[in-house]
């Protein structure tokens, strides 16, 4: 019988190319539907691609120490990019939707924010999936190793932030030199203790905790170095986008926090949060499908549905759904083919024929959807176009279930 092993490495080149070729233009078209969030969306997609790149670094045969160091250092920018993508989009959408004039506007405003954020998240997920399809599936073990490295990298920033926070609470008027010495001593002792414990715990896994912990320290040094300038700018960038009085309130509260706890403490805690966020992403992906094409398809579906709720044209909705199914089918077919015939056999022609058949099917489906939409709008129920479409879909599902049985 044909073997069913699932080797590491990229899907078939043709499958990866098909997934990329379908995903990239659709993401670009969806991004055009949320022009206010384009910057956040771009940064978020870059973060997703950077996340996959760090996974590939871990999966490479390079020496463990440079790998751990580079992944530890990359975790912070990747986490910041992902956070900017998600929260930046939310912020922009909120800024665009609010304030509202009437109480009824709150619900529509919330739905608009939901649609815009969903579009951005869908595009980020699609970018993540396409990058995984091109580079290779993320196995559970690989994601676990990344999560472990990211958590270790967040130790120093988290402990430093906690200590500085504690000192600020205990001693409201700190003397900088003494406080820093105190903080460093406490952090050093804590990190050394944690590292020893982790070294023993993780030795069996081949991970050297000292290296990612060191990477976290380097990231912290950079963050503290730029915190005086970067943190106020970041606060201003956020509060400026918040509507009216809310922006002023948040600005006042954030400035107060910086004044009480210090920019260094907050920067360290934010850095720990960003790095930990990438570990959470890895942990979340462990429970998901291993193939990038499935993630890309899910992202396209999410982005398409969300964009449709904020006024995307029907043609884009149909194209997005058709593309989602095409990506899913092409990726699943490529993965099955790779498992069955291995990487050395040429699969291009078989995949091209299969992709051609799938493309015809989904294009016919899109044409059918367009016809249903037109018919529903003009024929069966001119006053309630959605009702006509729903009637068609209901009949279709009934026929499908009958055919499947």
């Amino acid at each position, binding site marked *: 019988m044909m073997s069913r092993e699932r080797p590491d490495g990229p899907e078939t080149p043709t499958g990866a190319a098909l997934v990329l070729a379908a995903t990239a233009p659709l993401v670009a078209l969806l991004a055009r539907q949320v022009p206010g969030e384009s910057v956040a969306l771009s940064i978020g997609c870059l973060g997703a691609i950077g996340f996959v790149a760090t996974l590939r670094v871990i999966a490479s045969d390079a020496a463990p120490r440079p790998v751990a160091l580079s992944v530890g250092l990359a975790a912070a920018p990747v986490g910041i990019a992902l956070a900017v993508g998600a929260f930046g989009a939310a912020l922009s959408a909120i800024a665009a939707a609010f304030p509202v004039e009437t109480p009824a506007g709150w619900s529509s405003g919330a739905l608009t924010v939901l649609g815009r954020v969903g579009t951005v998240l869908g595009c980020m997920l699609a970018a993540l999936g396409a990058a995984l399809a091109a580079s290779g599936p993320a196995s559970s073990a690989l994601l676990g190793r990344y999560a472990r490295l990211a958590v270790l990298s967040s130790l120093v920033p988290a402990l430093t932030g906690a200590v500085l926070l504690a000192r600020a609470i205990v001693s409201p008027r700190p003397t900088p030199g003494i406080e820093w010495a105190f903080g460093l001593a406490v952090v050093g002792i804590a990190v050394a203790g944690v590292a020893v414990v982790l070294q023993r715990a993780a030795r069996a896994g081949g991970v050297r905790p000292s290296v990612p912990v060191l990477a976290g320290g380097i990231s912290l040094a950079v963050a503290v170095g730029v915190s005086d300038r970067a943190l106020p700018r970041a606060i201003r960038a956020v509060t400026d986008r918040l509507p009216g009085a809310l922006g002023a309130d948040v600005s006042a509260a954030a400035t107060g926090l910086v004044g009480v706890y210090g920019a260094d403490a907050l920067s360290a805690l934010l850095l720990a949060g960003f790095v930990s966020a990438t570990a959470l992403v890895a942990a979340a992906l462990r429970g998901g499908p291993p193939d990038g094409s499935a993630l890309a398809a899910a992202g396209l579906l999410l982005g398409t549905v969300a964009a449709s709720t904020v006024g995307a044209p029907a043609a884009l909705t149909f194209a997005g759904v058709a593309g989602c199914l095409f990506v899913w089918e092409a990726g699943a077919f490529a993965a099955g083919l790779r498992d069955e015939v291995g990487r050395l056999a040429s699969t291009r022609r078989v995949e091209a024929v299969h992709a051609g058949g*799938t493309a015809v099917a989904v294009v016919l489906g899109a044409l059918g959807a367009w016809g249903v939409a037109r018919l529903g709008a003009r024929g069966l129920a001119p006053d309630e176009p959605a009702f006509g479409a729903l009637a068609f879909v209901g009949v279709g599902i009934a026929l499908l279930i009958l055919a499947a049985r």
Partner: protein
Amino acid sequence: MTRRRRTRRDGGLLVAAVLVGTGLLYADAALLSAAVIPLVYVLYGAVSRLPADTELSVERSVDPSPSPPGTAVDVTLTVRNDAGGALPDVRVRDGVPDGLEVVSGSPRACGSLRAGEAVTARYTVVAGRGTSRFDDPAVSLRSFAGTAERTTTVTSAGDAAVYGSNAPPKDASSAAARASADGASASAGGSEFYATREYRPGDPMSRIDWTRVAKTGEYVTVQYREERPPEVAVITDARPIGRASVAPGYPSAAALSAHLGERIYRELAASGIDATAAAVGLDPGSLDAWVDAAGIAWLEVDTAAPGRRRDDRSERFFAELDGAIGRDAQPLGAAPEGDPTAGVPPIDPRTGSAPPANASADRPDRSAPTESEATAASPTSRLDGLLARIPAEARVVVCTPLFDEWPVSLARALRARGHRTVVAAPEAAGSRGDDSADSPDARVARIGRLARIEELERSGARAVSWDVDRSIDRARRRSVSLLTER
């Protein structure tokens, strides 16, 4: 034959449900209408069928055939669409024989075939000993949508096996055949003057020295030297240290040595020369039926048995030896499992004899006896057993990869006892045309081997090197020639 149908119902309905649910929630006609797309997608998968006519022909070719063990064998499997229409998705996997490892290429292939088109899988295996038969290739067909699937095995035309060349040599002009023929004619009556003795009744009249009778009146019978073909002992070095190969999939050096020993043995036996085979360095429990008290496996000459039965015995002996050495060769340079000297006697390089039994126990690295030593006889008795069972006049060929000094010491010991000694050594770390041959371990092994060959020549033994990339016949002929020449 297995038929399978993959359904897209779950995935398609999930997407449709998401679209319908969101469309209803937002009262969005486009989303509701878009639900048609997954339904068409599922319908496409449901109606997609395999073509009615799916006639395929499969042919396999093996090159070279027969193939000496250890050589790379190119296998080509071609699947042709003999049906009238196109087959959108044909996947094939050849039934590679158990024990043969694919070292390059892939035994699997796929193609989308129009009528008359073919898809080919090309790969390379390393030939083993004996006949390795292919299983029928598995062919899987799928419909355009990939939802209908049929998997079946197809009997292939062409080559059905990789034949590891163990056939006895057919060239009657071989050195052994000539030596045996010489010996046989001499034993029939002798041709070279040897001595005279007093006439005894019954001596042939033609052997009476009539000249002497005329001169002295004494009846003297002339004796001629009665020549017998030389007796030969073929010793195979099967110690764990030799169970390493230059690249994955290739036979170990010990297996190549055993193969060379078998070929030499067969040529000698086919030429009527009494040949004894022995194997040293076996793991405990191996070749139980052949092993003596000293832990050495022996295939003695059974002159009473008919030729066919002797062939069967030797076939069984070498097959069991091959199995005992095993196919799981370690990479060259990797530490062998267990003690590399396990199962073999140490030899004092100065005296060419076994050290006293307590000497080995004094060596720090042998302070803890291995399992084989604990269960088998002492090293000294093993060496004594080896040397004692080699007939006094026998010539000896030692087939060994020369990975360490032990074969050199053994050759010295044999020379010291007056045995003509030939050491036949496969060049296991030779050129393979890839990076593995240039690895540091391979280079070290080659340099050490060359140094040992020089030592052998100095000790009076003759060395024959077999570059395993070349034919084994040359090394076999050379070894037999050195053994049987006068």
